């Protein structure tokens, strides 16, 4: 009876299915938990404009000036932190009173872009941009101009909206 091949075959199949099923049931919650953060917004940074100082700090017609963009509150998974640096921006007021801001994040791979008085230069792969933030062709791997950031004046204070864009693309899309 016990050695009936049909029965043995059934027992083998039942054991394999049950054992495999048990393994899946045990592993599934752990896997679900581990992939959960993949597409979740685990770090929350402010989407509304951030105060970056008084308007007076920008002289009309002066060269680009670097400012730190500091978020008042950042929620990062389980913590809430205050006054967290998000990144830098280059800002200026042109001779015709236009307010401009460029993200200092290189559109190639995200290094911090510097300004030497005439041109913007990325220290990582030597991409260059003109004084207007326009990409200088054949200088480096960056595929687009520096990313402008929305900036406005509220009650004499500069307010900048921090946006991260997708890296290493020629089109500019929010990340």
């Amino acid at each position, binding site marked *: 009876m016990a050695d009936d091949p049909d029965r043995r075959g059934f027992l083998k199949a039942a054991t394999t299915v049950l054992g495999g099923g*048990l393994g899946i049931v045990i592993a599934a919650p752990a896997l679900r938990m581990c992939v959960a953060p993949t597409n979740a917004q685990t770090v929350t940074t402010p989407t509304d404009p951030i105060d970056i100082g008084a308007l007076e700090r920008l002289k009309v017609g002066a060269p680009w000036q670097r400012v730190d963009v500091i978020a008042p509150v950042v929620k990062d998974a389980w913590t809430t932190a205050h006054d967290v640096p998000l990144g830098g921006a280059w800002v200026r007021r042109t001779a015709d009173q236009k307010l401009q801001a460029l993200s200092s994040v290189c559109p190639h791979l995200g290094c911090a872009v510097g300004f030497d008085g005439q041109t913007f230069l990325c220290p990582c792969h030597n991409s260059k941009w003109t004084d207007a933030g326009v990409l200088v062709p054949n200088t480096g791997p960056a595929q687009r101009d520096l990313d402008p950031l929305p900036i406005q004046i509220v009650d004499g204070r500069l307010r900048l909206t921090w946006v991260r864009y997708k890296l290493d693309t020629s089109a500019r899309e929010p990340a």
Partner: protein
Amino acid sequence: MKERVTEWMAERVRALSEQTRLGVPGGPSLAYVFGWVIVMFLGVEAITGAALSAFYAPSTASAWASVAYVQDQVPLGWLVRGLHYHGTSALVIVTGVHLVQTAIWGAYKKPRELVWWLGLVLLVLVLGFAVSGYVLRWDQAGYWANHVEIGIAASAPLGATVKGFALGGNEYGNLTLTRFYALHVVALPGIALVMVGAHLWSSRMHGSTPRWGRDGLAPTKRWPRQTLRDVVAMAIAFAILLGYVISQHGADLASPADPAAAYDARPLWYFRWLFELRHLAGSYERIAAMIAPVIVGGFLVGLPLVDRGPDRSPMKRIPWVAAVVGLFALIGVLTFMSFSQDQGDVALAKRDEAAELLASRARALAVKNGVPISGAQDVFKTVPMYTARSIFEQKCKGCHDARSKDRKGPIIGAGHGNRAWFEAFLRAPSSDPFWGHTKIGPTDDAMKPVELTPAELTDLTEVLYAQSGAGDADATKVARGKALFDKACTDCHSLDEGVSGGGGPGLGELGSRDWYTSFISNPKKAIHMGKLGEMPRFDGDLTITERDALAGYLVWLRTASQADLDKLGPL
């Protein structure tokens, strides 16, 4: 193709398949399943542990926060954490059953002594996992339980060194967590892997032990009939664990570890017998806590050495079987006593209830506001206006809260300083909610009720209300009110900023944040209550930041309703 694959596999797993062929003596039996159920639970611990380690942050500031995040915010995090935590209980239970069965069957007898000893090492490892894992959550329960455990270890010879090594220095801190974490996820699993391997290998070498009196029966193949029984047992055992974990919604988590707050620390349930033994031992508790495990351990280790002879029938080994069963029965009784003692303790139940309330508040705040990077304890400070409200609670409530038994001043609550409040005050300054409980209230020094028509009273209210800078003041009413004020009030009061009246307080900017700060700093200043003032000054007691925060809270109260106040939640 299929043959070649099978052959390739067969060559490489020959050793294993030969083992499988060794088989089970006397045919498949449910009696042989316990070892594999233990292996399954160890697998559950390994898998859930790996997942949890991807979320856990071992530092005093972040440990609790990351565990609370897993428990309350990560999808299925509660389930994984619950399986990991309660899985240890399951391991202890099944290991205990496995051990008792082995002892009753005499399966530790020659030549299987090594298998027995390796099994005991595994039991100790499971307990080591439990101790090192419980502190990692860094909540009140784990933190204080660890104090007790380390305290016992510290009272043993060389205890101070052991304690310093375990804690990573002189005190509980970041190194305590990183060290217990390393122990829990690297050292112990490494040792356990070797020990499980050795235990399995040695037990397979000797084959399963049949029931007494059935020695010499021809072994039958393990696969698939015994394997099916193993797998069914695993599935049932896991289903029970899963059901329990779901019913408990994972594992509990107390409020963040707080070195300053007392907590009724209780060891994990499988250590409760030792806990009870310490109670019973009274002043000999330290000795009991150290000696008892040594005796129990020594007895179990020595069992194969003293219970010799080939006969495995329990009937022929009554003293030994009785000793093992008696030992576990004693452990069971002590465990029961410990729990029933707590059950009857009304005061303890009350403290536990308070602790649970605190825990649920901490966790709700962690979900809502996140945990400050300064530490998990500060999660309580993320409630709105925490600084001001806690100061109010400590410094102001006694004299100003409506429910206070010995109130000495006006009631301060929702709507304090709004239009209705001013109007009621003007009608009856010395009534109960206002100066009724003050020293000047009943005297001639107190302000007399204002006698005006209702319309005039509204206008006068408006000019006083407008002092705070409230944006919704009606300019027309203010102008009319100002005329009334100049006629009726200027004998004692002034509305000019920084000017005191003639005997009464100056009312310029009354109810603004700056005015409150100034008043709280020194109510006896001439511009405020002067000599009539009864309230003490707080510029020495509270920093300017604290006074300003308190002033902000009082300004907020003006527009707040009781519902708004309730919505702030408890401190």
